[in-house]
């Protein structure tokens, strides 16, 4: 399945500055692994050593949070958009 992955500003330096990437795979995790092959270290920013999504990052397939679908095993279809959203605080002066 070919999907579009939206990379948040915080992670763009891990993927050569790209805001949008093409990814392929049948599930969210497969897509992340696909991107990781091209940009090593990317997946680790999102997924901890136990294989779970880090709690300050959300991932959406289209507009649904994968935590309420099938988490990293959530299936994706052609044309879906996978969005990565870390929490931000702003500010600091």
């Amino acid at each position: 399945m070919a999907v579009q992955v939206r990379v948040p500003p915080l992670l763009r330096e891990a993927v050569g500055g790209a805001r949008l990437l093409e990814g392929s795979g049948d599930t969210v995790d497969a897509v992340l692994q696909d991107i990781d092959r091209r940009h090593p270290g990317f997946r680790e920013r999102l997924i901890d050593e136990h294989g779970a999504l880090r709690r300050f990052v959300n991932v959406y397939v289209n507009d649904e949070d994968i935590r309420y679908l099938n988490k990293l095993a959530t299936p994706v279809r052609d044309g879906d958009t996978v969005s990565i959203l870390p929490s931000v605080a702003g500010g600091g002066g």
Partner: protein
Amino acid sequence: MVAVYVPTSLRRLTNGQAKVEVDGDTLDMLIQNLELQYPGFRQALLDEGGGFHRFVNVYINNREVGDEVGMATPIGKDDEVAFVPAIAGGAGPLRFTPEQVKRYQRQIILPEVGPVGQRKLLAAKVLCIGAGGLGSPAALYLAAAGVGTLGIVDFDTVDLSNLHRQLLHGHKDIGRLKTESARDTLHDRNPDVNVVLHNVPLTSENALEIIGQYDIVVNGSDNFPTRYLVNDACVLLKKPLVDGGMFKFDGQATVFMPGKGCYRCLFPAPPPPGAAPSCAEAGVLGALPGVIGAIQAVETMKLILGIGEPLVNRLLLFDALSMEFREVKIRRDPECPVCGDNPTITELIDYVEFCGLPRESALIG
């Protein structure tokens, strides 16, 4: 069924809803049915003699019900009844001054606002957490629109580096307390507004007492401990929270309503220290908080007026570089420790510890 507008100060009785539907052929029956469904309503509206408190104005279809028309006033099934607290100091039906009519004219002529809507704004009490990048446009627009009471929480002083984005402060304010600079700017914009200054860091010791004085909270905080503190306090006090944030060129906005999820449902844990740079470290384009803060002001007014569809269970995502707005869904997490089915957090905690920050570097407030 009759549509009843619930003033922001009474929405704790209706689980946050701005409009409810009840049956009633007369005002008296309507209030009885309101009390059955939402206990506490009767006492909020009526005194011991069974008449309306002097500080409550009653409108049927946007027309004021004067003192002489009583509880037997008939109500049609498609009518809308609004109970609106009178503005502080007002006794009996409130009249706008000619200056107020002129000042608010452009919004009063909107059918969705009208004179009743303007009174709802003047009766509302909104707390802005932070008088910085987000708080500035939010507070400015809310004051301009005539929100009657605006609280400002900030204990920072104005710095030159603030001025590229923090609209409440000017060059002459450098070195002043942000709250005082804010008050002067807001009063200059609209002397109708009662600006209440909370020149303290918001902590677990004072948050409930401060937030408890207001109907709606607008979050413009700049650090994670405060975000979680404000969130938890709003859940515990059942206050709507109009949230916003941004990073570089991306912004976010949403509205958390009591019972419909909270910030922890969205982000159960903060990033480890250092993983999410602040604007001071990463930078931000000045106009960007202007967009998000204005959106927060609009959402706040929609809640006060009871109009439109607020960003409840919707996270608005703004990408300024591509000028794209998108939305993702937010759900209430049944396992959320503070607003879930079995809450484990029932009082405010140590947020600095929760966010893993060394105590000296905490930026609460």
